[in-house]
């Protein structure tokens, strides 16, 4: 398969993840959409690395995966704290800072 096939696949997954981020009401659902978007980026990095025979893409992918795990841990901790305080994780109800 040509390089563009992998890139178009990644763009499709990215768009689907963006749709999820925009439409989910639940904070955990929004995080799942972000996961999809980051995943699409990883496909891009690995595809470019393979087709350019450059190892840096693989290493960036390893870093992205590790940072994503950290992001999920912190994000879900925040979600749990919000749930403990407000008893909801609906993003629409969390408007404490709205002026």
């Amino acid at each position, binding site marked *: 398969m040509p*390089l563009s096939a992998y890139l178009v696949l990644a*763009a499709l997954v990215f768009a689907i993840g963006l749709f999820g981020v925009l439409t989910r009401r639940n904070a955990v659902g929004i995080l799942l959409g972000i996961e999809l978007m980051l*995943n699409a980026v*990883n*496909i891009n990095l690995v595809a470019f690395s*393979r087709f*350019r025979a450059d190892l840096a893409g693989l290493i960036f992918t390893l870093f992205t995966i590790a940072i994503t795990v*950290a992001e999920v841990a912190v994000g879900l901790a925040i979600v749990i704290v919000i749930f403990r305080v407000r008893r909801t994780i609906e993003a629409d109800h969390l408007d404490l800072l709205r002026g």
Partner: protein
Amino acid sequence: MTAEIVGFWVAAVVLVGASLAVVLTPNLFHAVLWLAASLVATGVVFLLLDSPFLFAVQLLLYAGGVVTIVVFAIMLTERLVGESIRQTSRFVFNGAVLAAAVFVGIASFLLHAPAVARPAVSGDQLRELGRALVGPFAAPLQLLGVLLVIALLGALYFARTED
């Protein structure tokens, strides 16, 4: 070559289908399970790109670790059975238009790009990867370890009990 084409289309269909299920299914718990399927399909795409090591990392960290954490978060915040886990979406039309516009924008740009020949696999990729991680990328690797420690300490700090 044929095996790669067949594998690509199978992985692509599973990946796109599972991703659509993640964002469309009303049950959040099912969405997490679809996310696991989507992450495994991504790992298969890595295999097709001759990166078996990243396939293993993807399975261990993403499909194993992230999905477990998210399942725990759902169990802590919502009851597993009952109405509360069902959710409706908002702005479905606007979100679909925007996501489709982003996809069309990227894809139309990509399809005009010149084709690149796929170079042959050379040498032991894993050995090269290990050497690069302790050679030119040693400092970022250490910073990554610091970041992980800080992130986990932060998560512990957020989730601690008040006492």
